[in-house]
């Protein structure tokens, strides 16, 4: 696994992607060794807030040694990041977590599913799968993205790598409803799921995958302090006794954020 580091990363560009959502490219050597679904901790400058903000890696550009973060402004940390512009430095900790096991999709019909601000990490996931050599590649890649309304940020980029399906809560785009509704509605073919989004969506996917006999790998979120597995702040419940903790708990930051849905007690 790539060595973790905390280092300054230079802002290559930042733009507003849609209301309250920002699109940030950072130059960092972390880019050289990243798996899709991994994340970084971004540190605010504001010295009254000391913890890193976990943000998924949305895309990687090895040639420029750059990673892309797409994030929503929700509090003081993300508000601060949104003000960074080209040439500024941001301190980041990473690469963190395990990432999506895309080799599990070799020869299978893979579906990446994202809900709201869970969409970003699936872009690199879809991209990597699409770049694989024939033997390792999925037989098909679909993307199912759930949004609140017609603000379907990033969806255009997914269509480069995957067959696109959209669900929107207000029905303004694609299927009215959630991602499962879209899957059913559009008859999305599916052997393996890689998903990230709010907990109710993930629970729904776990149940749906079980019902159709597909495998699902879910990326979870939890409040974090260390980001490196030391504080035991960010656990989720596991069905079996976890190998590291020896209780029914796994660390999302280190053993996850991506888990085989079958191992989780959601």
């Amino acid at each position, binding site marked *: 696994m790539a060595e973790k580091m905390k280092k300054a990363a230079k802002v290559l560009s930042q733009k507003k992607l849609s209301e309250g959502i920002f699109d940030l490219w950072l130059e960092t050597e972390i880019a050289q060794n990243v798996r899709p679904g991994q994340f970084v901790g971004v540190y605010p400058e504001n010295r009254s807030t*000391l913890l890193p903000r976990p943000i998924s890696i949305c895309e990687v550009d090895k040639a420029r040694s750059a990673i892309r973060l797409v994030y929503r402004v929700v509090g003081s940390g993300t508000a601060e990041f949104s003000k960074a512009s080209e040439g500024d430095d941001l301190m980041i900790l990473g690469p963190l977590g395990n990432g999506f096991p895309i080799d599990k999709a070799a020869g299978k019909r893979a579906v990446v599913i994202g809900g709201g601000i869970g969409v970003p990490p699936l872009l690199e996931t879809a991209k990597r799968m699409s770049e694989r050599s024939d033997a390792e590649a999925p037989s098909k890649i679909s993307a199912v993205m759930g949004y609140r309304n017609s603000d379907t940020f990033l969806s255009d980029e997914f269509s480069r790598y995957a067959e696109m399906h959209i669900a929107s809560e207000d029905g303004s785009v694609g299927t009215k409803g959630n991602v499962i509704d879209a899957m059913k509605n559009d008859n999305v073919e599916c052997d393996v799921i890689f998903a990230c989004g709010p907990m109710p969506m993930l629970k729904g996917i776990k149940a749906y995958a079980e019902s159709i006999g597909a495998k699902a790998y879910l990326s979870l979120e939890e409040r974090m*302090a260390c980001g490196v597995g030391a504080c035991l*702040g*960010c656990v989720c419940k596991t069905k079996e006794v976890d190998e590291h903790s020896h209780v029914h708990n796994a660390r999302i930051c280190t053993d996850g954020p991506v888990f085989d849905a079958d191992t989780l007690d959601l």
Partner: protein
Amino acid sequence: MNTAVEIAGVKFKNPVMTASGTFGSGMEYVDFVDLNKLGAVVTKGVANVPWPGNPVPRVAEVYGGMLNAIGLQNPGIDVFVERDLKFLEKYDTEVIVNVCGKSVEDYLEVVERLSDEKKVSMLEINVSCPNVKEGAIAFGQNKDALFDITKRIKEKSKKPIIMKLSPNVTSISEMAKAAEAAGADAISLINTITGMKIDIYKRKFALANRTGGLSGPAIKPVAVRMVYEAAHAVNIPIIGMGGIANAEDAIEFIMAGATAIAVGAMNFHDPYTTEKVVTGIEEYMKKYGVEDINDIRGIVE
């Protein structure tokens, strides 16, 4: 220039330790820190059996620090010895094992189990975790209970004992004196201060446990004061902690009377902190002509 300090016959190459629960067993920080450079690794609290800890959310950020209510999740002493202690054997640093329990018997079981482990230099007895309902904190907020448990552990332990005190008390001096009177070899302080955070938009507690322990720079002035008071109340060595972020903070604790210090929550802000503190102390000593770190201990009276 001497940075080594001694506590209960154990020699530490420098006074910089990790605060229990903030550094795992060291394993999680090897990408950032050379464990061989530290005075000691103090491990996460371990009990006689595995503990699942509290429900999430377990951590919340607050101004200048954080709240935690991990609830002492740990894999139990057997796994700890097999895995964590074995891992630490590779390093040339002292190991202090933090011990937790719900009853005196729980503590004694762990203490006995560790008594013959070569790699273990000292035991730190956590009687001050505010985040578990049973035991623990009760021992740390009542001086008779503290005296009693300290005495019973001392009777059983072949390793020197550090009693880790709670700041959630009216008089830290009295607690320190009780620990000393019962035979503790050292005391460490402070554990976290009980706090609470409410999300006014969700109308919910930020932590599932409602309350959690406050740590980080926000608590440093309280910690320095308590180290000072304890140092003037007892003759056993003190390991000071609470919000240490850099070498200046570490020296402040030493000048207040601490023999050694530990870095806790600030590992999360900067995973290199412990090593930077080691280097920074050396630089301070060089710059201000301090020959021996022990010369400035408790120098501000």
